């Protein structure tokens, strides 16, 4: 029966080409616009570490002694140096790592290249297994390297391509400012979206969070080694008094270090919360803290708190769906016109014994066919849309590609939308009283 309806639908579509083209176009444009924005949304709102993110937590304590915020006081997005090192060295979590970003000058002695400005992540050995960072050559440094402030580094695939032409560069030397470091590992191309582990300050960003979707750092260096190598070049997240020497933050009244912990069970999470609270109480008793608020948000909770999806992207998605709504109304109107015009034909079919349901099914088949053709057009338009997004100067531009899931959703959405649009007109058509129509014929 479906084959017959399909044949009828094709004939009907051919009969009034202009109307068909109008309907297909409306659906294609609506689907194209909404799939483009939905794909970008999907890419930017996804879980950067599926399966692991529920066990990763971002720890915060409140070292700032100045009164602000009132009842809605939130601890700073980063930790001061002392709290960060205290909490990290307690090793109360399954894994824990410190995070500090900075810029420095780098040269590779053997490569004939001018000096580059690179971003360096000061972190600890747990960073790599915690965040499932993939290695191309070599591996992470050891806990001993962390403790001994070893001059070692892990570099990104990009930097390895740039400096060493993509060869295995493990064991080679890189000059970071005035220090030589030995490369112990080279990463595979790694592009978490967002670059979740450095996300902070989203609530002050007024929705302009595109910067969270940049590329990971070029060089990863043991925490204390990095602090020595790039002395005086660190940026605070915030300070409650001016640092004595700008850029030297170890003893400054500033928040600038991030702490991530991995906790593999709910019991451990609860225990770690207790540990954080105890630490804050103890520091207050020592007179170092005035406030004892702490936070331990999991990865997705932390991204939510920072409203990591750029506001413009959300706005575009809303707009696109409003637009799809307009296209839907448009299609309902046109389908109604089309079906009611064929009232005579339906009258004959009904008089010859077709049930209402059969007429309804026939009409829906036609609507679905229009949806499918519109879906093909919408798919092409969303490819065009994503190409336009890739040409935008946003940090996430290179991520904008249609994956298999979204490809499928395009067609499902197109067919669902058109069947939805078709159901009302189809209902009307199936209610055509046969006798009246036959009289008119």
């Amino acid at each position, binding site marked *: 029966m479906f084959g017959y309806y399909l044949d009828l639908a094709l004939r009907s579509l051919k009969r009034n080409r202009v*109307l068909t083209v*109008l*309907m297909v*176009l*409306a659906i294609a*444009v*609506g689907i194209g*616009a909404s799939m483009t924005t939905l794909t970008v949304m999907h890419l930017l709102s996804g879980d950067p570490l599926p399966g692991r993110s529920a066990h990763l937590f971002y720890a915060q304590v409140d070292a700032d002694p100045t009164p602000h915020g009132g009842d809605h006081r939130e601890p700073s997005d980063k930790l001061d140096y002392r709290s960060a090192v205290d909490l990290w060295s307690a090793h109360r979590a399954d894994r824990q790592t410190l995070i500090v970003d900075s*810029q*420095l*000058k780098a040269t590779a002695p053997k490569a004939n290249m*001018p*000096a*580059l*400005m690179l971003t360096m992540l000061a972190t600890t050995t747990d960073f790599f297994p915690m965040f499932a960072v993939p290695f191309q050559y070599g591996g992470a440094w050891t806990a001993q390297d962390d403790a001994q402030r070893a001059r070692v580094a892990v570099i990104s695939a990009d930097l390895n391509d740039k400096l060493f032409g993509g060869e295995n560069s493990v064991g080679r030397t890189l000059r970071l*400012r*005035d220090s030589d470091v030995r490369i112990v590992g080279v990463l595979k191309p790694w592009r978490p979206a967002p670059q979740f582990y450095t996300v902070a300050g989203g609530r002050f960003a*007024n*929705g*302009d969070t*595109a910067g969270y979707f940049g590329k990971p750092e070029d060089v990863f260096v043991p925490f204390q080694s990095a602090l020595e190598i790039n002395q*005086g070049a660190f940026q605070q997240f915030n300070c409650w*008094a*001016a*640092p*004595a*020497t*700008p*850029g030297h933050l170890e003893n400054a009244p500033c928040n600038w270090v991030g702490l991530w912990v991995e906790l593999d069970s709910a019991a451990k999470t609860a225990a770690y919360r207790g540990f954080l609270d105890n630490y804050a109480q103890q520091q207050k008793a020592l007179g170092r803290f005035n406030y004892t608020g702490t936070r331990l948000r999991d990865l997705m909770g932390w991204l939510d708190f920072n409203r990591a999806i750029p*506001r*413009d992207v*959300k*706005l*575009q998605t809303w*707009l*696109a769906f*409003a*637009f799809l*709504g*307009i*296209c839907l*109304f*448009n299609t*309902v*109107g*046109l389908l*109604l*016109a*089309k079906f*009611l*015009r064929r009232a005579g034909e339906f009258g004959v079919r009904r008089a010859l014994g077709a049930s209402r349901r059969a007429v309804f099914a026939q009409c829906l088949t036609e609507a679905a066919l229009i949806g499918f053709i519109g879906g093909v057009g919408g798919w092409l338009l969303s490819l065009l849309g994503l190409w336009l997004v890739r040409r*935008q*100067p*946003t940090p996430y531009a290179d991520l904008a590609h249609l994956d298999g899931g979204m490809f499928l959703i395009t067609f499902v959405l197109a067919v669902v939308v058109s069947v939805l649009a078709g159901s*009302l007109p189809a209902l*009307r058509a199936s209610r055509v009283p046969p006798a009246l129509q036959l009289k*008119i*014929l």
Partner: protein
Amino acid sequence: MQIKPVLVALKKHRLATLLIALEIALACAVLCNAVFMIASRLSAMQLVSGVDESSLGFIQLGGFDPKSAHDLNARVVAGLGAIPGVQAVRVINSVPFGPAAGAFGVTLDQAGKQFRGVPELYLGAPGTPEALGLKLVAGRMPGAEDYQTVLEGYLPANSNVLVTRVFAEHLWPGEDALGKTFWTGRNQFRVIGVVAQLSVQQYDEEGERGAQWTVFVPVQPGPQLAGTYLVRADPRELDRVMVDARTALAKIAPDAVVDHQQSDTLPALRTRFFQADRALTGMLVGVIVSLLGVTALGIVGLASFWVAQRRKQIGIRRAIGATRGDILRYFQTENFLIVTFGIALGMLLAFVLNALLMKFYELPHLPLYYLPLGAIALWVLGQLAVLGPALRAARVPPVVATRTA
């Protein structure tokens, strides 16, 4: 033209009428809000920087040893100054549309009780206000003695500063700012001059900071102020000068790395700063065009259908004396009524949408005058869309009435 028969006819097609009206309502709501967003983005892009943008360029160096800051500053100022066409080179912390480099919370008292927001500070070496082209409206420019050497931190303990007119008015509404003082932590500022305009480095129209909340602090360059330079040249030569400067820096400062992203002319930095706004504006224009297009197509489709359906009635009307104009006007009136109904709904919807946008995107209130503008646009669109089918209807010959079906 009588409206009643049109209304009676529309009642027979309630569903189709309702659909088109809903489509127009939704279009009206999106149209008003999208145009409003475009207008607010465009007005944000008109930001006045208060400096001679077309004559200025900015250079940012990185990777040098802070200990060699004095030497680097001296080499760069002398080296870039020697490039033909360069009128001035000054050490400055940043420029409008340049990197964010100096947001400080300020208070009116030393105790830090009377907080007055977070302006941006410009720190510059002698001659910087003149090189920027700041326009003084009261007081005086900093003299040689005002440029102090910074011993600790970023700022001198006491400095004589310039503020913008807007920021002076924000700190001391209705009063004369000259000679007044304000604080950031333990550092005191005393106002010696008021400038017409000087915009912040990275303006965000939704932040709490005003676009002109800036303070110019005269300082001597040193370790706390190095590696960032203002270059002034004739507007016609600026592009060439900046290219030459970037090449020359390889020789002048081989120990530093030029930040090519940030080192550019101010017009180029401005263009880049507003790139996202421009992209969003472009997208909104695209949405509006396709929106109006789809709506028009819907009207054309439905009107054509109705014309075909009513061929016989039109023939009868023509046969009993209606002119072509009568038929034309009938369809135009019908369209006008449907669109008006849609617009009425759409205005309500526009406000609902605006309320949602205000809640989630901190957008301001939709000004009322957008509604009649949106209404006129949709009326015109409706009339244009229906014109084709209506003309076709007007051409139906009276003889049709005599034929069956």
